[in-house]
């Protein structure tokens, strides 16, 4: 079964359109949403949670159409972390525990305070005095403390230092060890996504450029650094996009279509992402 199923999703704003986006996240897996600013990542997240109304298409979350009345019940099993949106700043974590106890049927107080401890978050301090990273950690603690089966995480690692980010990625990996649990996560930090995701979806200007298994993606593409003459043997249909430098040519290529004589390096998600967006646009200007 799919944790998330999105079909032909459309949402129009003045000056922006999320255009006919379709993808599926099977249960037990992690999907990373990658995209530049304004690509439609947050819009997609909001549409998954139905906090904004879609213009057309279908969104099913944990098997439930998210516009149906029963979706409120399904939300019990979804943990959400949003970039910048949280409780009023005069509250503290102890109070959040009391509020959530009365919000989620499956609230796990011990687990929540366990995470507070693990992240060294002071429970009595008001959020006004929390740093951005601390707020993020609090938000993640909440999302993980009500027996969620799905986590919807919008930029959960932004503003955090590498050590904490790593710790959070560990926790997320732990979470999906249970095959019933799934995660959809967006981030600018493609390295984080590369570490944990099973699937990667690229959004650009409201369109889904690609959505594939990470391993397939990393195998399918390759990076070539070559001089102009060396690069001459690479057929045109093997080149996804290229960048010319004073020293030669850097290119993203299809591994299968590139001659064996050319040295191909393993790409990172970031390489694929940057080449697909930036240089492709420059190449086709």
């Amino acid at each position, binding site marked *: 079964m799919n944790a998330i199923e999105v079909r032909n999703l459309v949402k129009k704003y003045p000056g922006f359109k999320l255009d006919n986006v379709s993808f599926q996240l099977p249960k037990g897996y992690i999907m990373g949403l990658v995209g530049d600013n304004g690509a439609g990542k947050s819009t997609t997240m*909001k549409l998954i*949670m139905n*906090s*904004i*109304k879609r213009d057309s298409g279908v969104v099913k979350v944990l098997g439930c159409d998210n516009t149906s009345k029963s979706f*409120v*019940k399904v*939300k*019990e099993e*979804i943990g*959400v972390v*949003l970039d*910048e*949106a*949280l*409780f*009023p*700043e*005069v*509250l503290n974590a102890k*109070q959040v525990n*009391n*509020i*959530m*106890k*009365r*919000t*989620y049927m499956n609230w796990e107080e011990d687990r929540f305070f366990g995470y507070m401890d693990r992240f060294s978050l002071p429970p009595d301090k008001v*959020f006004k005095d929390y740093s951005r990273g601390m707020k993020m950690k609090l938000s993640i603690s909440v999302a993980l403390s009500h027996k969620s089966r799905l986590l*919807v995480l919008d930029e959960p690692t932004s503003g955090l230092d590498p050590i904490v980010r790593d710790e959070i990625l560990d926790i997320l990996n732990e979470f999906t060890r249970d095959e019933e649990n799934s995660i959809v996560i967006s981030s600018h930090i493609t390295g984080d996504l590369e570490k944990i995701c099973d699937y990667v979806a690229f959004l650009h200007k409201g369109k889904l450029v690609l959505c594939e298994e990470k391993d397939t993606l990393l195998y399918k593409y390759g990076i070539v650094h070559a001089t102009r003459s060396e690069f001459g043997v690479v057929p045109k249909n093997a080149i996804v996009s290229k960048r010319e430098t004073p020293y030669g040519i850097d290119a993203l290529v299809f591994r299968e279509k590139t001659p064996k004589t050319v040295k191909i390096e393993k790409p990172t998600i970031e390489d694929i992402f940057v080449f697909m967006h930036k240089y492709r646009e420059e190449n086709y200007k």
Partner: protein
Amino acid sequence: MKGLLLKDFYTLIKQVRFFLLVLLFMALLPGTSMAPFVILYAVMLPVSILGYDERAKWDRYAAMLPYTKKSIVLSKYIMGYAGLILASLLTVTAHVVYANIKGSVPELGYFYEIGVLVCIALFYLAVHLPFMYKFGVEKGRLVFLALTAVVVFGLMYLSDKISKGLMLDPYDLLAYIIPVAITANLVSILVSIRIYEKKEF
């Protein structure tokens, strides 16, 4: 819903503590009528909460929690009503205590006065909350000011009429304005829910 109310309560608790101090101070000054002040303050409580919510982008977060938009809106009204009940109980108690200290009998007129004030406060809630939801707290405050001007002039006009004996006395007035206040609130709740359901965060 309980979680939402608790969150609103926590948001206000510090502010209300300060308010109670001011109240105590005013109660110690004989001769001042604190009733209008207290009751109108209660009406402003939901606005205060909305202000805090807006700054924290709480509504975006709340939309992700297992709450219906209906209950999110309704909880603000309930906070307003709870504040109003508390404020009027407080002033009535203060009045009775004062009367006892002075050795006099509490005036019946005072209770009617409170009744009229509560109705005005209810009317206030009913009119300004939908605007708050529609335009946000900053612009909504302008409506609040405009409303205050209308109410003040309205009261001046009414008291003028009453003193000239041309219109109803306060007792009859109450019989008219209670149903108006209740109806206004029911309509207001429906309008606010509609506005909130259409809103995107």
